[in-house]
């Protein structure tokens, strides 16, 4: 059974169509990458799959139950979303921010337990911020704030991780470290990854399923070999590309 599936999904933003009749099946173990030009609606697709905005038509099912009939809280137990950016209107410490990830698992009047604290601290260790828990999030660098967001998502422990440009603000070392961490989550705990990326070469290294959004509702999905051809990629980005054979498969460079 799929973690998440869509039937005849139709999404539009204003007058532009993001996808038309999209049939998507995300199974545990899958590592999906969504590619597309700016403004084709990649983020909107993630928001829709997370239930934050309704689709124009079609259905989304989580474990074969319709997404819009599930309580928000149980959706958040299944699906986690890493946002492109983080807003912090008021001061909050790193640990407090990561602990918010436990919200879907706590009763209305329940306080975070020691076990929740341990989970949050483990997540901070995993993203390499173990010694920063008392820092205020608004004093962190962009990359550190990004990793706090990832730690929050780990603390939430969803089965499906929706990531909006997870490598934003991260240096090369941390890009690899975070994506390794995500891949590890998928293989060890039977989770699934569905992420928006702009770096085709990182995507090839970490993902085994691709969804291309061409704009005007046209989509294409499949495995790396079937979808990531020069024709498809050049049509997708409307830019000529050069293929260079590398140690981990083909590298694509813009011409």
């Amino acid at each position, binding site marked *: 059974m799929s973690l998440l599936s869509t039937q005849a999904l139709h999404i539009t933003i204003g007058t532009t169509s993001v996808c038309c009749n999209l049939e998507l099946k995300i199974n545990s173990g899958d590592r999906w990458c969504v590619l597309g030009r700016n403004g084709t609606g990649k983020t909107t697709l993630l928001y829709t799959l997370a239930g934050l905005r309704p689709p124009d038509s079609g259905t989304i099912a989580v474990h074969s139950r319709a997404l819009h009939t599930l309580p928000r809280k149980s959706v958040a137990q299944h699906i986690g979303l890493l*946002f492109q950016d983080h807003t912090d209107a008021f001061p*909050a410490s790193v640990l*407090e921010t990561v602990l918010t990830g436990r919200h879907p698992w706590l009763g209305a009047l329940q306080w975070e337990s020691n076990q929740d604290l341990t989970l949050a601290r483990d997540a901070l260790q995993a993203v390499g911020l173990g010694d920063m828990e008392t820092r*205020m999030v*608004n*004093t962190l660098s962009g990359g550190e704030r990004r990793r706090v967001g990832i730690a929050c998502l780990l603390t939430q422990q969803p089965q499906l991780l929706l990531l909006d440009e997870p490598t934003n603000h991260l240096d090369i070392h941390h890009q690899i470290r975070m994506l390794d961490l995500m891949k590890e989550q998928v293989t060890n705990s039977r989770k699934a990854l569905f992420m928006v990326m702009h770096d085709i070469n990182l995507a090839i290294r970490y993902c085994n399923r691709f969804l291309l959004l061409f704009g005007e509702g046209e989509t294409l999905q499949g495995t790396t070999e079937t979808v990531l051809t020069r024709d498809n990629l050049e049509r997708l980005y409307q830019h000529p590309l050069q293929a260079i054979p590398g140690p981990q498969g083909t590298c694509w460079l813009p011409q």
Partner: protein
Amino acid sequence: MRPAILFSLLLLLAIASLLFSLTSGSIDVSGQELLAIITGTDSGNELVRQVIMELRWPRTLAAFTTGALLALAGGLMQVLLRNPLADPYVLGVSGGAATGALLAMLSGLGSVWLHGSAFGGALLSMLLVFGLSRGAGSWTTSRLLLTGIVIAAGWGAIIGLLLAISPEQGLRGMLFWLMGDLSNAPMPLGSLPVLLLGLLAAIAIGRSLNILVHGEQMAGALGISIKPLRGFIYLLASLLTATAVTLAGSVGFVGLVVPHMLRLLGMRDHRLLLPAASLLGGSLLVCADTLARTLLAPRQLPVGILTALIGVPVFLVLLHHSRSLHGEER
């Protein structure tokens, strides 16, 4: 600072402010006399007993309730609008109340009518903003903020008009009401339960508030139904504000600054911040009101002036010494 220590200090401050208020005034009362009167063992001065129980006690309690209501409403409003500049009056509740109150004064109606009319005006304004901000589109925070501010500006114009056309002898009372004044405040029999229920409700949604400061989409992704929560915070904060302004007019500064004072002291969890704000807001207003009626006695000053006179330096000192707003926690 650890929450337990901060709460102990706030409780001490609250008790101290109540004692300060009950013992100060035209007749000085010693602590022993006060204790005797409260426990009912005093056999002596009937006048002193009357002053304490019938004048000072209701007024002190009204001051505490008003301050607590405003600080609580301010904390909620700041989270709702995710704007540190928000105060309980930003969305026009006090403007509606003021219009109601001034109309009652202009018509020469009694104090029961005054309070009823102020509360009615506040509710009218609250529903007006709530209804209009839904509009044709979705109920977004910026739409709510803009609607509220425009409605508040509208009330401002009406208040100006009422002041301009009212006879000279009524102006003083109106100005006092607009600046916040507790001299006509009744025993807060209705407001105290509103405060307690509001506080319980605020603590109950406290963890959601902690997440809401990180953005509405983030809160949605963590399993919070945003629309009902937002509506609930708005109605709760407005109702608390309406209750406060009905008691004492539009006392400024408490609602804006008290939540920030506690944030500067390192309190950020809203389940603790909001009850702490109620204690501090109440204590601040009790002290301010005591000074308002004793500083230039027998003349009384509007309490709103004193809240700012006390609050501004305290807040600035805290801000100056604090690193927790933009730095490491101490």
